[in-house]
């Protein structure tokens, strides 16, 4: 085991897959010689050569389209979209192509592409370097959607994503790259060495997609979340002192129905938290699943704590972000209901 931050874990997963499978190819804007604007592919070109790790033109559409084409010719492409805010030019290739090739060809053809992309706010990135668009993609049948919350999961899930024969959209909460974030931007930053999930095996391992993790067991309330909010929620739980069960979804599509349904059936109360905007966000789907499956066990309305229904404003980043205080207020409301 080694100490890794999330970037190192993601780098390690890619390196591991480049070593094990000659068909793995890694590309995107600035990922080659430079090693990526977040350094998530640092050193890979030097080690594995430019035939396997290289820069592409600045065309998200072209990156995904050619990745699909490569996969049809036996490759296992891992494409980086520099910021998830910039994935939209590739939307058609994702929604109409990657997600439908297996289906429309009656299973003859399929694509195994992995799309890595940093998401989320908290780094003063303004409205075009902070988005969390995962909810949009969960509505598309045929693409898996993953978002880890720590280095250990990041590596295991990324390896699973690359090994998967389905297309996977792998969101990386960039605020967590260098350390866990507990929701207070003014607190001194700490590293992943303070967190047990900062211990990461050097070699190959994988975490199955569609298995949520209960990061805290509890009896009074279920909190369902993913990404950066896993840690923010932890803070709120500590602050409120409620005996909450925290579920880190890890994979949004497909979703782990059993874990969430069992937990809410047990606690009878539920809060859903994500950084993305509220209306039509993935929180609505989680809430619906619970409503449909746990109705008779519910003792209070399920609530959603999310980003507001606006773009991420540069100056008001922390007024926008669902900070522990907001989560805590919702917890209290639910417990008092």
């Amino acid at each position, binding site marked *: 085991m080694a100490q890794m931050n999330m970037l190192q874990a993601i780098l390690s997963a890619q390196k591991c897959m480049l070593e094990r499978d000659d068909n793995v190819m890694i590309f995107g804007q600035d990922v080659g010689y430079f090693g990526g604007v977040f350094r998530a592919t640092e050193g890979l070109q030097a080690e594995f050569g430019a035939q396997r790790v290289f820069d592409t033109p600045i065309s998200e559409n*072209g990156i995904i389209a050619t990745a699909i084409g490569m996969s049809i010719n036996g490759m296992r492409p891992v494409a980086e979209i520099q910021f998830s805010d910039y994935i939209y030019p590739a939307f058609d290739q994702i929604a109409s192509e990657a997600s439908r090739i297996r289906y429309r060809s009656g299973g003859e053809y399929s694509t195994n592409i992995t799309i890595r992309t940093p998401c989320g706010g908290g780094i003063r990135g303004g409205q075009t370097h902070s988005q969390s668009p995962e909810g949009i993609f969960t509505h598309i049948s045929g693409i898996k959607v993953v978002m880890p919350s720590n280095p250990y999961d990041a590596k295991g899930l990324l390896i699973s994503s690359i090994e998967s024969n389905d297309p996977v959209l792998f969101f990386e909460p960039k605020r967590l790259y260098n350390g866990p974030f507990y929701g207070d931007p003014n607190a001194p930053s700490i590293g992943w060495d303070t967190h047990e999930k900062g211990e990461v095996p050097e070699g190959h391992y994988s975490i199955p997609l569609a298995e949520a993790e209960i990061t805290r067991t509890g009896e009074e309330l279920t909190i369902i979340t993913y990404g950066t909010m896993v840690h923010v929620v932890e803070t709120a739980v500590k602050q409120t002192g409620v005996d909450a069960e925290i579920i880190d979804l890890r994979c949004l599509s497909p979703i782990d129905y059993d874990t969430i349904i069992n937990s809410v059936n047990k606690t009878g109360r539920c809060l859903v938290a994500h950084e993305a905007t509220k209306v039509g966000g993935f929180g609505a789907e989680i809430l619906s699943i619970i409503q449909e499956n746990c109705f008779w066990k519910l003792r209070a309305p399920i609530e959603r704590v999310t980003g507001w229904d606006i773009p991420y404003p540069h100056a008001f980043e922390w007024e926008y972000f669902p900070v522990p205080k907001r989560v805590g207020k919702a917890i209290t409301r639910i417990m008092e209901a």
Partner: protein
Amino acid sequence: MTKHQSSRQNNLHIPEPKFRPGQTNDFAHLKIPNVDEAPKPAIDCNPHNIRDLAYGLIRVLDDEGQAGGAWNINITPDILRQGLKDMLLTRLFDDRMQLLHRTGKISFYMKCTGEEAISVAHSLALKNSDMVFPSYRNQGILISRGYPLLDMMCQCLSNSRDNCKGRQLPIMYSWKAGNFFTISGNLATQFSQAVGWAMAEARKGGNRVCTTFVGDGSTAEIDFHSALTFAATFNPPVILNIVNNQWAISSNQVVAGGERTTFAARGIGVGLPSLRVDGNDFLAVYAASKWAADRARAGYGATLIEHFTYRVAPHSTSDDPSAYRPADEDKNWPLGDPLERLKTHLINIDEWSEAQHEQLAEQYTAEIKAEYKQAESYGTLTSGARPDVSSMFEDIFEEITPNRIRQRQELGL
């Protein structure tokens, strides 16, 4: 072909075809070069030295059906005859399927009438192991590569033998064993994917070539640009074909920018070698395709080809072109009919006869009829056997997910 807007009026320029229903298009504005005008460069030429080829028109067959010029590469009579046969079969198949639509047997169809030479000659100039990322008007490639008519018909009927399991509209074929990619309903998406396929081939050091097709209208789509950009940057073994059949549903090619320059010029924009070919001239399409394939296989990379032709048929069975273009426009099309031209040439060189042709047409007609009978025995969209209904929940992912299992149960399956 190029027109400069010299009006000083500050008005939005709305391009319009020169002729509309009720008028007659004599195509007098089209300058058709002679067969000896286009030089044939070596495959290792510098693309910058052959830019003129993007503005001319590569032709081999003259108006009398004689082969000539630099692009006459002396294709063997066997190949020419095969080409004629495949084109004939393609046309007869199209006619039959169109008829089936009229009788309500299939829900939709798209013919390639007048464009048969493009798919068939291209297909014969390449190897069957080469990969195709097709558009929806490349049935000639399937037929030339020997995809069974029965399979095509069953796909069109969405019946129990449809390899797409009833999920796709008719003509949206997929034939993996034939290296023919699943056709997309979304225009141009295959064009950029093809470049990726070829990039992988280059990386593997393989020697297969990838070819892909797009219509004149579809060159405006975003994937066209991605394809050209990535092809220019990574220079993989890909052939980027534009089929300029003058129309995109009701829009004339002037709406796609055809008024100002050729579509082959798009390749010049990114520095790719670009050929403009008489798409109704089997010998020219074959020669140009072979040149591009040879280049690709030898490691010189990507080529763009504009096939200049005319969409004789309606866009699809949902379309009635008499609403937007002169009824007899196809009759006046100066590049003629590709079948007739090749037939004339083969007869000229004593390698074919009218009688043989007639006999073959009869044989094909009978074959198609028989195949269709068999196809119908597997059901049609509205009667008989169907694909397994419960299969519609499969193939989203490699493994079916719990929500889809539940939904299948909900449907009582």
